[in-house]
């Protein structure tokens, strides 16, 4: 279907269903129950899941296929956000011009940064991209360009926002929040109360989800294309490719630019959901986060980055909100001394300690599941498959030559 093989088609269908039904899947606990703490089906987090999913899919196109580890991808995320907010400031709250601009501008920056950084490979490439990203972070954090022209381009640490004094030449009276072509406001939410459960369907989320599905489909097509094969060949042995008389640079640059445009799109979507662009989006921690997402989910796999993005965002938003009061509620059935002891034990891993929990999980995954969450899923699947058919399998793959 749509130029995909059978397995890929089912993968795309699974991702589509997961994305469309996410408000149900991620809200498994009744609103009033104690477990509601772990519900993740509220608009802001759902949006983050899919937006960072797009970011990670794009990153995986570069890292998973070519093996070039970019440590500065967050720069494109920031550029995308600034582009969208500037369109709000100049035109109006329609998100479409901003998103188009976000992709174009991040693409242009990717050409420039990629052209220079790709002259080196391995660790040197990573350091170059990191240097570019940190440079751009410093410039936007202090608004150096803006100060040079005695105006404000990034609004420094406060972050770029829309003010009533901005030109906004296309603004209509009814516009006050980001919307899609005047059809629907991004923050409009339909809340469905079903018994004890409450599900929210947010327009912005579904917009992002559809874009994420398209982005995912595109990435599958790239993975399966001759272009994708070329990138993988570069990953396995670039020297050999060069010896055969092939110039690999244009392919690597193309992959870098596509990946940068994905990141720009994700950044643009962030600003489309929430009309603010901050320089922190460009910081090296944000660049590192996408690397973690991809490795945690499974680098080089199709669905891995999306899973990794969801995993990290879940921890950041859910675990950081658990506090001691909540813990006392959980363990209230225990005798007093034991309750305090349990709270004392769990305390370092929740609230401000969510980094610690995530770090431990990351270590466990990297040590025991080097292929990421996808490998975990495959192992479980194999476990069940083995139970069903005990027929002997061919253990050795046939050599290619």
């Amino acid at each position: 279907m749509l130029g995909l093989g059978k397995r890929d088609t089912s993968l795309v269908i699974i991702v589509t269903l997961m994305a469309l039904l996410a408000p149900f899947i991620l809200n498994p606990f009744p609103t009033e129950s104690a477990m509601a703490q772990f519900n993740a089906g509220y608009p802001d987090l759902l949006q983050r899941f899919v937006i960072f999913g797009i970011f990670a899919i794009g990153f995986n196109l570069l890292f998973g296929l070519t093996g070039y580890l970019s440590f500065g991808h967050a720069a494109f995320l920031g550029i995308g956000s600034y582009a969208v907010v500037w369109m709000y400031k100049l035109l109006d709250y329609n998100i479409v011009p901003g998103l188009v601009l976000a992709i174009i501008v991040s693409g242009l920056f990717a050409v420039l940064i990629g052209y220079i950084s790709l002259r080196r490979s391995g660790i040197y490439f990573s350091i170059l991209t990191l240097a570019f990203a940190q440079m751009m972070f410093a410039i936007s954090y202090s608004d150096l360009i803006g100060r040079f022209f005695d105006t404000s381009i990034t609004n420094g640490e406060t972050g770029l926002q829309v003010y009533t004094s901005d030109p906004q030449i296309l603004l209509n009276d009814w516009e006050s929040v980001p919307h899609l072509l005047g059809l629907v406001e991004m923050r409009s939410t339909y809340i469905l109360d079903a018994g004890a459960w409450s599900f929210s369907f947010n327009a912005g989320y579904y917009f992002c989800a559809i874009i994420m599905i398209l982005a995912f489909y595109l990435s599958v097509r790239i993975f399966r294309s001759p272009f994708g094969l070329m990138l993988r060949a570069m990953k396995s042995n670039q020297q050999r490719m060069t010896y055969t008389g092939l110039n690999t640079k244009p392919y690597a640059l193309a992959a870098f630019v596509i990946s940068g445009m994905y990141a720009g799109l994700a950044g643009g979507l962030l600003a489309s959901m929430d009309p603010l662009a901050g320089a922190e989006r460009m910081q090296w921690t944000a660049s590192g986060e996408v690397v973690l997402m991809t490795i945690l989910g499974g680098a080089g796999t199709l669905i891995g980055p999306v899973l990794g993005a969801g995993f990290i965002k879940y921890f950041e938003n859910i675990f950081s909100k658990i506090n001691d009061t909540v813990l006392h509620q959980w363990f209230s059935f225990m005798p007093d001394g034991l309750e305090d002891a349990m709270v004392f034990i769990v305390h370092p891993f929740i609230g401000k300690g969510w980094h610690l929990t995530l770090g431990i999980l990351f270590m466990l995954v990297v040590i025991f599941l080097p292929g990421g969450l996808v490998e975990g899923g495959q192992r479980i699947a194999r476990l069940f498959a083995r139970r069903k058919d005990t027929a002997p399998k061919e253990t050795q793959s046939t050599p290619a030559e």
Partner: protein
Amino acid sequence: MSNSNFTRRGVLKTSAIAGAGLALPTYLRAASDSGFTNAPTGSTVTLGFNVPQTGPYAEEGLDELRAQELAVQHLNGEGDAGMMNTFSSKALKGNGILGKKVEFVTGDTQTKSDAARASAKSMIEKDGAVMINGGSSSGVAVAVQGLCQEAGVIFMAGLTHSNDTTGKDKKANGFRHFFNAYMSGAALAPVLKNAYGSDRRAYHLTADYTWGWTQQESMQAATEAMGWETVNNVLTPLASTDFSSYIAPVLNSGADVLVLNHYGGNMVNSLTNAVQFGLQDKMVNGKQFEIVVPLYSELMAAGAGANVRGVIGSMNWNWQLQDEGSKAFVKSFGEKYGRPPSNSAHTCYVQTMLYADAVERAGTFNPCGVAEALEGFEFDGLGNGPTLYRADDHQCFKDVLVMKGTENPTNEYDTLEIVEVTPRAQVEYAPDHPMFAGGELGKCNPGA
């Protein structure tokens, strides 16, 4: 597939379950019924406490959290009621807010605008918070204030000292109890004149972000008005940890006062560097070299240790104040946590009380009603003397404390001493003052 499950019984069973499932969504919760975002429906009301729990201001954030928990206890009638006894408004009865028990959720701002907005959003969207309180950075406060304006909830700012929060970035749903950079400048100038004379040359080191800029601007204006000269202003990146390269040129600049427009870890490091360079022992232009830190906090002073001795700065509130409100607060905070509260803890406690009181007086949680109750509200007994919540920009006007590092500390919390309580009249300014111009309050937004 050869073995299909399509038996008559199976189909009937499945369709019955499906039918029941479809019938379940009994009604669509229309948020517009109540007329505002997150109208509390049950017997409880949820407040959102958004403070930095990780990052450079984590310590301030944790102290804020302690004070907020204490405020919730007092509102619910537990503990000794703290400042509720001394508060001039008697609307709060210790039975929650409007009879609803107060619950709270917490979030980590990480001192990043993005993360702060994400955690505020999750409190509003997921936990149904009607009010967001806390924070320890002006950049974050401005970002979260914008979010609350869009979402239709009240934002009671925590520690934010930039002029912009109630200046060019002011919002109708946002309220600030803390003082601001202009007030620091206005309060410090006369004290500095008395202490160091009116013929001084000042060198500014400024943290390169919204708070630093407005702090520097305010200090420069206030000190130049009394005759000081500004030699230079150098912007330092917020992430700097070593300021030696910025301090060295000060010695050769001919300046005799160093103004450190730094806060938190920046201030601890730059002050330590300056003291290590022996600046305070130098004689320049025939005068003793002096250091000024416009914005102080107990936690910073503790971090800088002996280096703060004799250094002048300003504060919103201090636990050593002897009025009834402060004494009551310090007592109940001390009994619960075994330490005196910091000035950011105080401001968050007071903001929570002021919000609860405004809801009681307005008789509704509707942000527009609450805003109306807070605008132009005059109160006393919360530690700062008679205070006004000005309607024009939602800024509190009250006395400002000028502090000095204690020369001979008697215990680990005795780091700062009060030099002067600058009366409110001296730090007031017009709503259209040039340092605060450019923004609009807009209209209050109830959401929904």
